[in-house]
């Protein structure tokens, strides 16, 4: 899992959560916030309107009230008696005038004192007299500072101008401490001068509690407060009585500059909606303070609901996410994990997933299980096929393909030098063919099985054993510790195989030829190595079998030489390097040459004359022998045709035919063609076959020979006596001639057995109607013996070695008889 991918990828659960949140939270938020904002706006507007109406109403109330008080003042100031009383100030000691005036004015003032909420009516003259009606009779105890201030203020007023404001009660004795004082200057006009002069200040002290009673009944709304301030900014009304007469904050006062208005400001740490209206005449202001928090508080119900809805939405999202995580994501992760395990071939991927429920996810899991089952089944089949491809069905051992792969690997390792001292051991059972032929294939298979078991038991743990095919086995030996170990292993194998066992009631002992090739980095291919081991095995086999041979440098050189030889031989025909040599066959009856055996010679530019034994076996291993044989047939036909044309019309020529020719389907045709081309009659040609050539594939060979024989060709059994020498097949064959092997002939004088066999062969041959020819006659004694037992013809060095066609032609006309021959031979 790449890290970068992980960082930016969003899990399914997260996606699901985000989606749900977008689907649930965003609409709730939008609805909630808009509802909140709209309702807050409405509430604020309503509150503003209500506050405005409220302050307007209270302004009207105050206006009315103050006007009422003012009308009292107006009435009093227009009372002539009072003006007269004020016109003349009584003398300081004139108690009568003072008391009488006081009484007189008192009676008048009292008539106006019935106004509700009135505390007192006071007249302060400039002369210092004080006339008073009110809640106390005690006029001696007054606040002079208040009086003086009020006097000053009153004197500053114009005629018929009235001032009103909150003040301390000028009369100390009164119960009412704070009053609304309404004041006007009283003037008198002198009769004489008709000049008007200020005479006194008329004060109406109005009970502030009376106003308080009124205003405290006004409900400005939850949390809101109503405030009345006078022209000086002192508080006339505040719900908290302690606040009354206190000066309103100047900065707030500064904000109330218009006749009416609404604003928002922060007072005492609380944001307030301030609505106010001014009493134009009096300079008073009616103010409402509404904390904006109360406005929002009412709207905040919506906020709370939205919040709860959000919380509910989150809870639902959380639960949904958890459920999804459990029912969808977790199974999906398990699936992913399984796929990852499958990809990395981690064991356990094939364990079926547990399935919950019946939904799509369960369906997916179920199908995954089915899928993994089929994968498993397919895997098993593939494994089987792979096993079959790389293993031998009979023994269960790895086959050539697999072994070659292992070998390639070993070579590769040897090339890097990681594994020293490895070897390949090539094993071939001796005489297995006989078992197969004599006891049948089933027995052969059984033998191979036993061999596999024995080999398996003999090899070490790390070694690789394989059956290459037929009775060939190979072992890859790894990590050989010391040079001698390979011999020990080979010995052990031989010993193991040598333990006798029973096949179809026949006790059998296995023997094998073993070739060993040490692995080194110089090899390029497994096949090279195998071939060399094969070569060594072949050497062991040709050395008599039941032994092991390690491929060495000499063998290496030999095999290289062999390769070169093979290469040269392939070009021998086209380069006209082959030569036909002829050895005369002499009739013992008259000493005359009755024919020649043609023998191939290879005249190579580098090698000189190469003996047949040096290249014929090589040619027989390949297909070259056919070409050589056909070339020889053609050459012999040409020559015998010449001889027969030049005075020897009965002369025959014998041509060797190797076993491989019988694998050629066109053999009979080819021979016929050659005969027709050269114009040689079939009876002039003898085809010589060895016993082993016939035995290789008897049925087919007999069939072919029969055809040839019917064509008129003569068939000769070559090297008779060395192999099976079965009379049965001799009888079955369309043979005309039997040739006694030179090994018998050479021993015929010294060895009585050989003499017996030779004489018997001659006898049987005659009985069967065959012409008997003895090969390898080298002295007169042998000739005499053969003559004695009536052998038909002979050939050998006693008469002539194989010679080129010119010399053979020269021999024609010779007649060998007894001593002459001997003499000739000696010269």
């Amino acid at each position: 899992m790449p890290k970068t991918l992980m960082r930016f990828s969003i899990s399914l659960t997260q996606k699901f959560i985000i989606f749900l949140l977008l689907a649930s939270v965003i609409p709730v938020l939008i609805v909630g916030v808009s509802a909140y904002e709209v309702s807050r706006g409405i509430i604020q507007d309503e509150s503003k309107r209500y506050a405005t109406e409220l302050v307007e109403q209270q302004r009207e109330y105050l206006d009315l009230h103050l006007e009422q008080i003012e009308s009292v003042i107006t009435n009093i100031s227009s009372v002539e008696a009072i003006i007269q009383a004020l016109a003349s100030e009584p003398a300081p000691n004139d108690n009568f005038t003072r008391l009488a005036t006081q009484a007189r004015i008192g009676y008048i003032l009292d008539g106006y004192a019935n106004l509700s909420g009135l505390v007192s009516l006071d007249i302060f003259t400039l002369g210092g007299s004080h006339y008073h009606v009110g809640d106390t009779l005690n006029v001696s105890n007054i606040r002079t500072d208040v009086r003086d201030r009020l006097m000053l203020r009153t004197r500053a007023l114009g005629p018929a101008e009235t001032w009103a404001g909150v003040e301390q009660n000028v009369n100390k004795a009164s119960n009412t401490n704070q009053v609304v004082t309404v004041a006007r200057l009283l003037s008198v006009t002198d009769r004489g001068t008709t000049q008007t002069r200020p005479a006194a200040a008329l004060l109406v002290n109005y009970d502030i509690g009376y106003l308080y009673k009124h205003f405290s009944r006004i409900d400005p709304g939850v949390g809101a407060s109503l405030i009345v301030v006078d022209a000086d900014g002192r508080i006339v009304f505040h719900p908290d009585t302690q606040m009354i007469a206190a000066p309103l904050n100047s900065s707030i006062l500064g904000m109330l500059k218009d006749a009416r208005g609404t604003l928002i400001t922060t007072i005492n740490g609380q944001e307030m909606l301030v609505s106010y209206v001014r009493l134009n005449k009096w300079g008073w202001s009616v103010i409402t303070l509404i904390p904006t928090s109360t406005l929002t508080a009412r709207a905040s119900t919506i906020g709370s609901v939205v919040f709860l809805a959000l919380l509910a939405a989150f809870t639902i999202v959380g639960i949904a996410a958890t459920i999804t995580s459990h029912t969808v994501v977790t199974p999906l992760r398990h699936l992913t994990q399984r796929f990852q395990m499958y990809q990395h071939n981690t064991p356990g991927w094939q364990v079926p997933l547990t399935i919950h429920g019946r939904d799509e996810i369960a369906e997916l899991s179920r199908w995954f299980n089915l899928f993994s089952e089929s994968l498993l089944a397919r895997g098993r089949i593939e494994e089987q096929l792979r096993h079959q491809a790389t293993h031998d069905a009979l023994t269960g051992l790895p086959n050539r393909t697999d072994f070659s792969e292992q070998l390639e690997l070993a070579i590769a390792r040897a090339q890097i030098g990681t594994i020293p001292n490895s070897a390949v051991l090539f094993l071939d059972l001796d005489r297995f063919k006989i078992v197969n032929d004599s006891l049948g294939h089933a027995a052969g298979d059984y033998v191979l099985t036993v061999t596999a078991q024995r080999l398996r038991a003999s090899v070490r743990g790390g070694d690789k054993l394989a059956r290459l095919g037929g009775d060939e086995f190979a072992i890859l030996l790894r990590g050989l510790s010391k040079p001698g170990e390979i011999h020990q292993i080979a010995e052990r194998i031989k010993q193991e195989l040598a333990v006798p066992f029973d096949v179809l009631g026949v006790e059998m002992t296995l023997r094998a030829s073993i070739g060993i090739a040490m692995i080194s980095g110089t090899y390029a291919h497994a096949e090279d190595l195998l071939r060399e081991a094969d070569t060594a095995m072949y050497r062991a086999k040709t050395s008599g079998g039941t032994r092991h041979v390690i491929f060495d440098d000499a063998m290496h050189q030999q095999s290289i030489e062999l390769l070169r030889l093979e290469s040269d031989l392939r070009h021998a025909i086209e380069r006209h390097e082959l030569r036909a040599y002829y050895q005369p066959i002499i009739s013992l009856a008259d000493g005359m040459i009755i024919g020649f055996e043609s023998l191939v010679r290879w005249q190579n530019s580098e090698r000189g004359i190469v003996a047949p034994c040096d290249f014929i076996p090589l040619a027989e291993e390949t297909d070259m022998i056919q070409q050589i044989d056909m070339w020889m047939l053609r050459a012999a036909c040409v020559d015998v045709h010449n001889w027969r044309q030049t005075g020897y019309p009965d002369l025959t020529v014998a041509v060797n035919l190797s076993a491989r020719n019988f694998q050629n389907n066109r053999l009979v045709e080819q021979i016929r063609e050659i005969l027709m081309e050269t114009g040689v009659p079939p009876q002039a040609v003898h085809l010589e076959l060895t016993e082993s050539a016939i035995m290789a594939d008897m049925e087919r060979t007999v069939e072919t020979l029969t055809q040839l024989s019917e064509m008129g060709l003569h068939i000769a059994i070559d090297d008779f006596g060395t192999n099976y020498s079965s009379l049965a097949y001799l009888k079955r064959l369309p043979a005309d001639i039997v040739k006694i092997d030179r090994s018998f002939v050479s021993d015929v004088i010294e060895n009585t057995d050989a003499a017996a066999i030779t004489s018997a062969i001659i006898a049987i041959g005659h009985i069967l109607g065959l012409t008997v020819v003895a090969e390898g006659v080298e002295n007169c004694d042998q000739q005499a013996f053969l003559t004695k037992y009536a052998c038909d013809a002979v050939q050998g060095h006693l008469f002539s070695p194989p010679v080129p066609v010119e010399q053979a032609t020269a021999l024609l006309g010779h007649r060998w008889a007894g001593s002459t021959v001997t003499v000739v031979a000696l010269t």
Partner: protein
Amino acid sequence: MAAHSDLYVRRRSTSTLATIVFLLFLAMTTGGCSQGTSPGVPLVDSGVTSAPATSAVQSPRIALVMKTLTNPFFAEMERGARQAEAELGIILIVKTAAQETSIDQQIAIIERLIVDHVAAIVVAPGDSTSLVPVLRRAQQAGIVIVNVDNRLDPTLAHELGLVGVPFISVDNVDGAYHAASYLSHTITVPTEALILEGIPTAQNAIDRTTGATKAFAENPKIAVVAVETAHWKIDEAFDVTKALLKAHPRVGAIFCANDMMALGTIQYLAEAGRKDILVAGFDALPEARAAVKDGRMVATVDQQAARQGYLGVQYAAQMLAGTKLPAETMIPIALVTAAP
């Protein structure tokens, strides 16, 4: 690989959890809007600390209802009552009719007090009979009544059921007798005398006339030529004196039932240049005391107005507390004269 894959899955789980937590946090912050808190300005400028309102147990309100605005006597009575107010922790409401004659106004005041439902009314009635019904109504409304200065008519009060009203005053007959006696004891030649009385329907006015008449009668040289009312008023006394002296030019002594009337009388005498007429008053106002001192008056009676006011309020407070009080409390009087 398996181990890695586990690790991967767990990592996913934690990041999922982190996502949920983050979103919840987001919701919290979105839901709970923060409020900006700037201190702003205080409502009031000076350091007026809105201390918790001392709204203790509502103190009983006791009303003192007096006869006139203009008589310093009543100012003195209020002074005493204020002292009691300060000492007893009650709330004193002072109510006064404009003039001694404003009986209807007094009735209106009491009716207003009934409506206001004061705890007690200390009343100096201008008239001994007219106020009885309204005071009865007040008593029935649960208001304690204390009578000061001028006595309510006991018979009428009893008739109307106005009982249990303590009376605080002075012995007006006695006071008037002593003042008149002091006036008459220097008179050795036959002399005409005048009596200026108060409101005739007021008991104290009647009592004072009785006392003065009795004292004058004891001196054979004195002949009372006229008993006339000036309704306790200073300017009316001036006018009445003027009229009576016109009718009786040889008058040598005048008893005024209160100092206000005496002050009016001596004002006229001074204006008329009559220095031969002796004047006595009642109430011992500061102005009267001054007149006595410089010889314009011979005597006045100190009836301790402040004491009456004090006692009246105290009695009312005690009655509210359930204390039994004497039906009649007489305050000692003192004769104020020039000679020691």
